[in-house]
């Protein structure tokens, strides 16, 4: 094992896949430097034919990736900020998501759209965690890695898959360090990871909310409350079984997300539990999410509406109390 940052993990994943497959391209705005530094050094290593900057043209970035993918290339494109999936809405939802279907499966669309999501201080149009929108839309796979190990393994897997993948890298995690296996590995889509075992409450959380849930769990453990924390890792495909199995043990479920509350991922998990696991639930579902307002630029105001570790801790106490 070696210890690297989440950002280095993303960089290594791209480099390794570019090394093993000539068809992999990397492009987007400022990828030569990497707006967060993530893709730095790749143009020097793989050359400007395979790694290049684009104009500020998000529909072109995603739409051209669809065109290149249908011809057999495997583009990895960057949208910088996850909010920009809406700038390229036609290309993300209707082209990447639907062109294979609409054309009767005539081709595959192996492309990865990387985008930095979440975090405080970036303003209403640069802060979204829009994974629920992707989860709601057909044809698009979605990964939300929480650790350097998963960032690398899931991205390598995403590049090898034959379907379009939205790969959300949480801005607050870029500097986080963690162990990654040495040598070749990939992380499969559709397999959640139990980050902490317990019997009091099942908490479903990922990325920055997972970190906060783990922090809350430590404090709760001091009082003898052991929560179980499930990290879904990918939202499409979505591993229902791991959550249901956990709920069978705990009898309670709480979803913590950095997306909007209404019709968020938590709403879907709640509905899924109603349909498939109601007999195991002793308590109502609890959702912690962002109220349905845009995220203010002011960091303190943004944090004011994000679920905090303290809020998670308090909500768990409310559930078990």
């Amino acid at each position, binding site marked *: 094992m070696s210890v690297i940052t989440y950002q280095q993990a993303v960089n290594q994943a791209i480099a390794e896949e570019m090394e093993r497959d000539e068809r992999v391209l990397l492009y987007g705005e400022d990828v030569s430097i990497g707006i967060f530094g993530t893709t730095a050094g790749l143009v020097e290593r793989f050359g400007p034919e395979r790694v290049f900057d684009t104009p500020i043209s998000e529909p072109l970035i995603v739409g051209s990736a669809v*065109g*290149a993918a249908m011809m057999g290339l495997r583009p990895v494109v960057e949208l910088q900020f996850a909010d920009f999936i809406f700038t390229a809405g036609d290309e993300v939802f209707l082209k990447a998501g639907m062109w294979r279907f609409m054309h009767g*499966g005539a081709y595959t669309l192996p492309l990865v759209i990387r985008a930095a999501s979440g975090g405080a201080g970036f303003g209403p149009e640069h802060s979204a965690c829009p994974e629920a929108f992707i989860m709601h839309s057909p044809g698009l796979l979605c990964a939300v890695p929480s650790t350097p190990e998963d960032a690398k393994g899931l991205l390598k897997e995403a590049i090898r898959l034959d379907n379009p993948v939205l790969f959300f890298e949480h801005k607050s995690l870029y500097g986080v360090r963690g162990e990654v296996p040495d040598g070749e590995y990939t992380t499969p889509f559709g397999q959640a990871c139990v980050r902490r075992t317990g019997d009091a409450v099942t908490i479903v959380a990922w990325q920055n909310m997972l970190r906060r849930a783990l922090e809350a769990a430590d404090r709760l453990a001091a009082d003898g409350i052991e929560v179980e924390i499930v990290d879904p890792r990918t939202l499409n495909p979505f591993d229902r079984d791991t959550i249901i199995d956990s709920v069978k043990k705990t009898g309670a479920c709480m979803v913590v997300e950095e997306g909007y509350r209404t019709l968020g991922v938590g709403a879907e998990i709640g509905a899924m539990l109603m349909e498939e696991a109601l007999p195991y639930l002793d308590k109502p579902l609890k959702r912690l999410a962002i109220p349905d307002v845009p995220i203010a630029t002011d960091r303190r105001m943004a944090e004011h509406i994000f679920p905090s570790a303290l809020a998670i801790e308090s909500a768990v106490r409310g559930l078990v109390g």
Partner: protein
Amino acid sequence: MATDQRAPILKAFQDALLSRRFEERVIQLSMAGEIPATLHPGAGQEVCQAAAIAALGAEDKVLYGHRGICYMVARGTPLTAILADIAGREGGTNRGKGGVMHIVDVPHGVLGESGTLGGGFVIAAGVGMALKRFGRGQVVVHFFGDGTSNRGTFHESLNWAAVKKLPVIFFCENNGWAVSVPSTVSHAVPDISARAHGYGVPGVLVDGNDAFAVHEVMSEAVARARRGEGPTLIEAKVTRMFGHYIGDRQPYRPDAAEAATRDPLPGFRQAVLDAGILDAAAIERLEQECAARVDEAVEAVRAAPLLDLELALTDAYA
């Protein structure tokens, strides 16, 4: 006429004629309620479409516009497959997922069409990026209307294709109408080709009813793209003879009756005769052959089973 135009012009005439006869039959069947009226008629624009496609090679790619079926006919997609896509029968190209608007035939280089108007530009740019990378001298042509040239995707794609010298030909069929909106109220500059200047690429204006001229400018654009010199914006002025869709009575269009008479096919027929490419007897035989091929496709599709409804759940993922 350059001698090397004889074969492609003959092909263009055959394709345009077959497309017209086929489309006339599709409209009849639609009006009779036998098949859905989902086609956007291409009548008046086939000469231009067929002449442009006649300049392509077998390995080249096409992303087409929504007006008519000449693009696929000219690339070699069987009429039976096209009609099956319209009729929701087995034997089509997209198994009910896209219908006539999204006919796809990868072996013939027909890559599909955007449902959102103007959505094809960026796809074409990506196809061009791939073709350039393959380095085999292939080109992609994207057919689009004057209306979609107002999408931001037009700008983004033309700019990028010019920057990267992509082998993409942007082929505008300017019929002056975006559904019910005339270009006089939506374009400050009447010629789409004039916009090419802003991207540093050649902008070529051509009479879309003149197959020889269309083939010539298209051949130049293809050669330029194959040489690695990048994209060309071609604008062909054409006539939309009928409404936007089958049954569109065009109350918005003062010249509707007159437009229906502005058919370029008789002129093309005369030009083919004058050039000695075909004589009258050969054209008569061609007409009979087209009628027979259309009949054959109609009978084949009538005999084909309806699509299995469970197909609605397939193909979303690989």
